[in-house]
């Protein structure tokens, strides 16, 4: 990169802006009214002409430069080196680059290499000088072009806005392409995994023990990739969490929006939202050190066996964590139902509870469903609490008092520690990730559907 060049270019563009404005004033005879656009737009027009083509040259150079330089240097190497097989040649080139950047390499004493390195440096210096010249001439050429192009009839605003539009589109596509990239890489790795473990076994197999053998004769390391226990565990814990979060969250939303005095609401709503700001690790040790032992003691007191890490403990604490997701959003949507709906209902002689159940909740339903689905996806993706409080043992059970494990926890354990990157154990993490992604996607689609259906009905 060329920070100095970039800075120069920036300064030139700023200059171009002022020149463009001045020029616009000049061609308009000092009367802004004569111009198609405001003078600032002519300034931006000139600045863009100055900056963009030059930047494009710079970018092209940054992409092409390493390849070209290497080609030139290699062409100057003695024939016996040039004719090496490609992978050996690569090694030589790597050595050369290390030499250039001043690292210590074994071939430092080889005069051929030293000479090549010198030439590399030389060529690079020439290239950089050429780049300066090219970029600056493009920048100044751009200014000159803009200078000539600026006339009262020039639609500078439309041009500038067109370019800005392009930038906005590009920015929004960054997120989209990143998502697509992540999905593709996950899908690709999952395909590798499914080449070794059949899909049906992965989805429906009841045995999960991802230790693969390093040597074929090792004991107890057959490797089983039936993920059903993980799905069951995730479902169990998320289910418990939702059982806690949905009723409590909804009722507190109703209380806050319909019954509480404004004063109490102003205090209680932020207080509830603080719950969402507590780091999940803190919830994790709260679950592991406080809630889990408590549940175990209570269980012992009534004669139940409770594992020291239980789905119940993790689910309860997770439920508390996601209460604000449900309550805060639901409260917002219930509040957003127009006062005239409440008035209409009260004026017909409805009580508060009738008004809530028959008018407010139906009207707010899309938003409430949305908030619940958000909470569900939060619960499914939550990792820390489960790692600390639910355990690692992949039991297939519906008993909330036993230890279970979840998809996210297993992804963590599969990828921590040194791993070969193509063993089924590692690849299994991607397959699990794919499942998580698919489930979240489906949840979102359902949420959109529900919302749209009720929109049609209610608006």
């Amino acid at each position, binding site marked *: 990169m060329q920070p100095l060049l970039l800075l120069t270019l920036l300064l030139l563009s700023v200059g171009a802006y002022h020149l463009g404005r001045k020029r616009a004033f000049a061609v308009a005879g000092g009367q802004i009214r004569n111009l198609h656009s405001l003078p600032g737009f002519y300034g931006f027009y000139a600045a863009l002409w100055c900056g963009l083509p030059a930047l494009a040259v710079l970018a092209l150079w940054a992409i092409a430069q390493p390849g070209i330089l290497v080609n030139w240097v290699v062409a100057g190497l003695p024939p016996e080196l040039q004719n090496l097989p490609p992978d050996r040649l690569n090694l030589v080139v790597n050595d050369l680059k290390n030499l250039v950047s001043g690292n210590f390499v074994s071939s430092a004493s080889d005069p051929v290499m030293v000479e090549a390195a010198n030439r590399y440096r030389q060529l690079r210096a020439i290239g950089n000088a050429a780049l300066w010249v090219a970029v600056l001439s493009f920048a100044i050429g751009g200014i000159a072009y803009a200078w000539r192009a600026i006339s009262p009839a020039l639609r500078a605003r439309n041009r500038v806005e067109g370019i800005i539009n392009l930038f906005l589109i590009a920015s929004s596509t960054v997120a989209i392409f990143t998502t697509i990239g992540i999905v593709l890489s996950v899908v690709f790795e999952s395909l590798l995994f499914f080449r070794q473990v059949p899909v049906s076994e992965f989805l429906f197999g009841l045995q999960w023990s991802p230790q693969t053998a390093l040597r074929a004769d090792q004991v107890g390391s057959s490797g089983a990739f039936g993920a059903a226990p993980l799905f069951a565990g995730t479902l169990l814990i998320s289910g418990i969490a939702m059982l806690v979060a949905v009723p409590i969250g909804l009722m507190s939303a109703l209380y806050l929006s319909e019954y509480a005095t404004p004063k109490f609401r102003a205090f209680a709503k932020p207080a509830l939202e603080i719950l969402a700001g507590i780091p999940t690790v803190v919830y994790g040790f709260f679950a592991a050190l406080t809630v889990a032992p408590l549940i175990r003691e209570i269980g012992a007191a009534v004669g139940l066996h409770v594992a020291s890490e239980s789905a119940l403990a993790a689910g309860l604490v997770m439920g508390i964590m996601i209460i604000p997701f449900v309550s805060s959003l639901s409260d917002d949507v219930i509040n957003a139902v127009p006062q005239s*709906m409440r*008035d*209409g209902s*009260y004026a*017909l*002689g409805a009580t508060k509870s009738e008004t809530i159940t028959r008018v407010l909740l139906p009207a707010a339903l899309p938003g409430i469903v949305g908030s619940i689905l958000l909470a569900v996806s939060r619960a499914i993706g939550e990792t820390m609490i489960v790692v600390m409080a639910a355990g690692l043992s992949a039991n297939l059970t519906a008993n909330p008092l036993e230890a279970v494990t979840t998809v996210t926890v297993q992804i963590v354990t599969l990828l921590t520690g040194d791993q070969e990157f193509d063993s089924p154990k590692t690849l299994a993490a991607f397959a699990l990730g794919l499942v998580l992604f698919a489930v979240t996607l489906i949840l979102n689609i359902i949420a959109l559907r529900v919302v749209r259906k009720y929109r049609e009905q209610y*608006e």
Partner: protein
Amino acid sequence: MSTTAIDTQVALNGALNRNAPLRQSAGVQVTDYENRQTVGKITVDNPKMVCREVNVHYGQKHAIKNVSLDIGANEVIAFIGPSGCGKSTFLRCLNRMNDTIPTARVTGQIKLDDDDIHAKEIDVVQLRARVGMVFQKPNPFPKSIYENVAYGPRIHGMVNTKAELDDLVRESLERAGLIKEVEKRMLEPGTSLSGGQQQRLCIARAIAVNPEVILMDEPCSALDPIATAKIEELIDELRENYTIVIVTHSMQQAARVSQRTAYFHLGDLIEIGDTDQIFTNPRHKLTEDYITGRFG
């Protein structure tokens, strides 16, 4: 400027002895702008609602000042007056909708038939079933047309079977003059109707619970002349069975639909009387100024 003790006595006497002469005799013109004592006869022979010395405060703001008037059975009474004078506030006292505003404080006596509506044994829910309300902006619930009308009868347990409910819904829509337009689309959302249709739906919704009094707060302010004419016609028909209180900014509308008119000014009830008399021969200078368009 509020009513003095003697005037209060007069008002109370009026309530007790309906034929007692009131302070202002007919034909006398009040030219004193500062005079805020009610001009005209506040009583009627056959009252449905009786309001005495009603005061409303919103926090510190005194929005209704010592207002006393009768609302006759099966009459249409119009409340007129400049914006902010307290027409809506007074209207909302009549079915205790002001209860839903935390800052509002209502004092004084309001009777429906012989029941004090503020008495402990009166359930506000039942009161509102007896005194229905239609709002300025149509506010159908986000439910189907059918469900909008069925809402009231359902919550009050007015019907036993689905067939009865169907009949009641149809009958209410018919009386609101809407049935022809919505017969085929009872299950479509109420919000899909036009503004005028929505307002008639709200009227149908209000009469479905078979109230005795219907309060209407500028029911036509969001409607075009044709929809307005329909609703005025409807009000005229509804008068046979209901008592109607209507707030309006349109003098013509008040003249067309009402038998009595009350003029409010900055929280005071300035003048009340037969609609004909108010519009042809107002006695208070403020009333005259308002109806002749000199201000407001």
